[in-house]
Structure formats: C-alpha cells, structure tokens
C-alpha cells in the first residue's frame, strides 16, 4: 500500500441509491450532460431502471448501480446499490500502459490525469480491468474520477463522500478505512449478515451469501491488483455488482507475448532461409555438383 494513501470505503449496505454522490461529482468537477443528441434520441439513458446512466463514462465519473434481484415467482426481491467510481488501484493498468506519462500517481496514492499531456490514444481504456476510464469525444482525451485532487490538495475530502447522507462513502487514510471496513464486516456478521466481505483488501473475512440467486455461495475478501484505494463492502459475488472476480494487470501478458513473437520470428526466418537454400541445393544438384 502506498504510504499515507488516501481513498474511500464504500459500504454498500448503507447506500440508499439517492445519487447525491453522483450529483456532487458532476457539480464539483463541472462535468457536462451526456451527448445531447443521445439524450434527445433516448439512447443516453438506459430507461429500464432507476439506474439511469448504466455505467461510468467520461462525463459520469461516479455511478450509482441499482441491482434488482427478483426471484422467478416474484415472491422475494432485493435491491443492491453501489456507488461506483475509479478504484485508484495500487497496480493500475491504465497508468502502466500510458505511453505519454499523462496518467500518474499523486502524492495521495490516487491516479490522476494530466489533461494537457493525454493524446487520446485510448490505450488506458482497453487496459482498465474495471471499465472505468473512458474516452471523451468532446475533448479527444480520457477522463475518470481523480479522487478530487484539487480538494485533497486543499485539505478537503472528496465531494461525493461529503455529500453522502448515509455515510455509505467514507473518505480518509486507507489504513484507517481498512480498520473501519473490518469492524463493519464483523458487526454485520454478528447481526447474521454473513454475506458481508471486502472487495479491495484482504482483511481475512469469509462468509456465505444468505439471499438472492447466489444464496449459499461462500465469499471471502478479495485483494485484486495489489489492493484498491477505493474499496467496497459487498453482499454478493463481485460479478453481481459488475465487478470482475479476478481483475488483472494487462502487463501479465507482456513478456509471454513478446516471447511468442520472438519464437515465431525465428521459425519464420528459418523457414524463409530454408526456402532459398532449397533452391540453391536444387540448382547445384541439377548442375551435377554436390548439394
């Protein structure tokens, strides 16, 4: 973990889906509305849920997910809600692949973007295992949550956490937040909510899902990509929340892929050399000489 890293703990059990965080994020960061043509064409919003925007984007740096679990005979139902954003990974795929130095690690351990350095190559978009960072068609550059870098530099917390009326979002030092998360999981387990576990840091919690289609499935804390500075308390499998169960750094493929390329080049080279040698041998043989 980055020393003195700042981040957020997202306790999904406290989220009411009010979207105050989403609005605060839009307001503080002066994010524009969705593409106007898409709004008029009714394609900007998903329209089949209270979850209007459906996913994070270049103009939605925070997104409140509404996950509706209704069983087949509609006798049982629950809503899971989760305020999602960039996780500010300890090993950030976006930062690793950036070829211009536009993405960088701040003094707070978060991942920010130098907008004037970004060239809009979109490599980071393909590299992010969470589908967070997105290309902004208007500016030709990428955008994502920057953990309110300007507010942090002024000694403030994030705008979303400030606006959250239920303390579902807590801003602070990651060390402190993990302690809060661990205590909260234990508290929930003591209440019989054994579903609770942490997605972002392995604090040693295990449990069993008690409700919904995955009832009975064992769960345990997950610490993907070296840990997440914005991490979550979840009540169901990560996939239910649109989170990957085993996100990975894209660099895992770099050396093996380059190795396969080298071997392929060598095989192709030998094949080509053999083709020309075969011609020489055939000509020498035809001329009556030794091959």
């Amino acid at each position, binding site marked *: 973990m980055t020393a003195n890293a700042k981040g957020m703990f997202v306790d999904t059990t406290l989220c009411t889906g009010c979207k105050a965080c989403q609005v605060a994020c839009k307001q503080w960061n002066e994010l524009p509305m969705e593409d106007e043509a898409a709004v008029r064409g009714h394609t900007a919003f998903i329209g089949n849920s209270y979850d209007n925007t459906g*996913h994070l984007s270049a103009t939605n740096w925070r997104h409140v997910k509404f996950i509706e679990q209704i069983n087949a005979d509609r006798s049982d139902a629950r809503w899971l809600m989760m305020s999602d954003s960039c996780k500010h990974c300890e090993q950030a795929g976006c930062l690793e692949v950036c*070829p211009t130095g536009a993405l960088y690690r701040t003094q707070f351990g978060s991942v920010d973007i130098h907008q004037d350095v970004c060239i*809009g190559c979109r490599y980071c978009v*393909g590299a992010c295992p969470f589908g967070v960072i997105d290309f902004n068609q208007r500016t030709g550059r990428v955008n994502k949550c920057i953990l309110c870098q300007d507010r942090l530099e002024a000694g403030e917390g994030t705008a979303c956490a400030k606006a959250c009326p239920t303390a579902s979002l807590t801003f602070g030092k990651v060390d402190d937040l993990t302690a809060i998360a661990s205590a909260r999981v234990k508290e929930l387990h003591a209440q019989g909510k054994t579903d609770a576990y942490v997605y972002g840091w392995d604090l040693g919690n295990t449990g069993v899902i008690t409700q919904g289609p995955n009832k009975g499935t064992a769960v345990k804390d997950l610490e993907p990509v070296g840990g997440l500075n914005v991490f979550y308390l979840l009540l169901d499998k990560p996939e239910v929340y649109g989170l990957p169960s085993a996100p990975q750094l894209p660099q895992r493929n*770099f050396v093996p892929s380059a190795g396969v390329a080298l071997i392929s080049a060598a095989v192709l080279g030998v094949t*080509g050399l053999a083709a020309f040698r075969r011609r020489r041998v055939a000509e020498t043989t035809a001329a009556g000489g030794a091959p």
Partner: protein
Amino acid sequence: MIASTYLLSPQWEWLIMLALFAAGIASGTYAIMGLMHVAGDEGDRKVLDRMGLVPMPFMLLTPILLTLDLGQPGRFLNLLFTNAGAAERPGPFMFNPNSPMSWGSWAMIVFAPFTLVAFLASLQRVRGAAIPLLTPLSRALQGNVIWLVVGELLALTVSAYSGVLINVTNQGVWSDTYLMGGLFIAFSELSGIAVAAIVAGRAGNARTAAAIRTTLFGAAIVSAVLLALWLGNLAALGSLSAIATSLLVGPVFWIGAVGAALLVPIVTTGPVGLRVWQRTDQLVIIGALVLLGVLAFRYATFFAAIAFIQR
C-alpha cells in the same frame, strides 16, 4: 436489471487498423528483403531492388493515419518527448518500458530512416534517380551488415509490437492469449512475402519467384498453426464466438484471414504435385489475395474485441 459489463472498448477502429496494416506491409517487406540479402544471390537483385521502393511510402502513411486518429498532429510528439506537464517523468525523452505502445512508437521512428535508405538505394538502381550525398550514403549503408541487422530487428519489432500491444490489455479476445505478438509478426511477414510475390510476378523473374513461392508456403503454414492455436485457446476460454460466429467479424475472418491469407497460398504455392497456378505471372494475383487476406486478419482481430463486448 443487473450491473453492466465491466469492460469499455478503446474504440480502435478503421484508421488504427489501416495504420497497422500499412506498418505491417512496410516491416514485413523490409524483413523479407533482409532474408533475400542473406539467402539470395545476384539473380534476385532485380526483385530485391524493386521491393526496396515499398517500405518507405507505407511507413510514411502509418503515422499519418495514426495522427488522423488522434485528431491533433501535435499530440503525437508526447509519445516521444516528455511534455512539461508530466513533471514526474525524468529526462527529455518519453519512454515507458511497461507500455508496448511506447516501444512501438520508438521502433517506428527509428525504423523509418532504414526504409528511406532502402528507398533511395532502390530508386537509383531501378530508375537511375540519384540525390547528391544521400544516394551514395544510402547505397553504402545498404551494404553494411550492422545496418542490415539493426534494420531487420527494428522491422521485426514493428511487425510484432501491435500484436503484443493488444495482448497487453484487458479486452476480451485480445488478452485471452499470449499469441497475438506471434500472429501479428506472422501476418506481417505474409504481407511482406505477398509484396515480394507481386514484384517477382510482375518482373517475370521465374527463379526468384520459385523461391518466393516456397517461402510463402512455409510462412502460410506457420501462420496457420499459430491461428489454429489461437482459435483453440479462445475456444477453451469461451470467447471463440466473438471471432468465429459474430456477424461483425466472422465472415471477414473465415473468407479473408483464413481463405485468402492462408488457404490461397497453401493451395497455390504448396508442393509441386499439388500446386495450382504454376505460372510466374500468377504470383501477382496470389500476392494480391494474400494482402487482402492480411487486411481481413487485421480487421477481424481489431473488431473481435468490440464483438466480444457486444455479445
């Protein structure tokens, strides 16, 4: 509703695909020229000289297409020089060893002069056109072993880097395997041999054409093996449908990448007893079909990631 998928597409489409196709022709042709330098003889000189005219224009086209995609030409410089805004980065040159795009940008920049030298040397041999100082220098460099070896390594890097680059993502199909670098190098070499086939066919050089036929057959077999491994890999991971059966990609992949780029050369340049299209001038058609097939391969691999998300 359930929460949406966690992947976003980088939206790399036509311009990027065409840029990498052009880079593949340039690097593949240069690599095959190196092979012919080493393994060929004076009888291949006529074809080799004409091939020297090919890499430079395609290498020129590549950054034009890439900067068109970026929208603002000046931004391209941030790939090479550290922008004042990126104060965390040391030194005046921008290079991120963890980013295949950084490797590729530098490889292309350094490789470009090698294609220019080949072009100028060939221009004098083929057309008799000479530029004072530059042409003699180019001819001297073209005969230098170190120059040839370095140029060959750069050509192979340019051939491979885009495959490694899409391997080093978290996109479906692209990151599901380690084979993309190998596949891209194989299809770049196929496009280089296709250029050689077209040039030899047009020049009517039967002796060189025979060796190129055998080279093309060998490269098609190696590419087919790599492609089969790749498809098997995708099938094992459950992402084969994004390339094999999607309407966006499937038809182009099977007809173009498999049919034109692999089956055409295997059938037309295979062992003499099985071979159809024996005449030297028919190599022009074979080469053109292979080039179209390589273009189809580029399309299929690029759009497969989008097809994967759309599943």
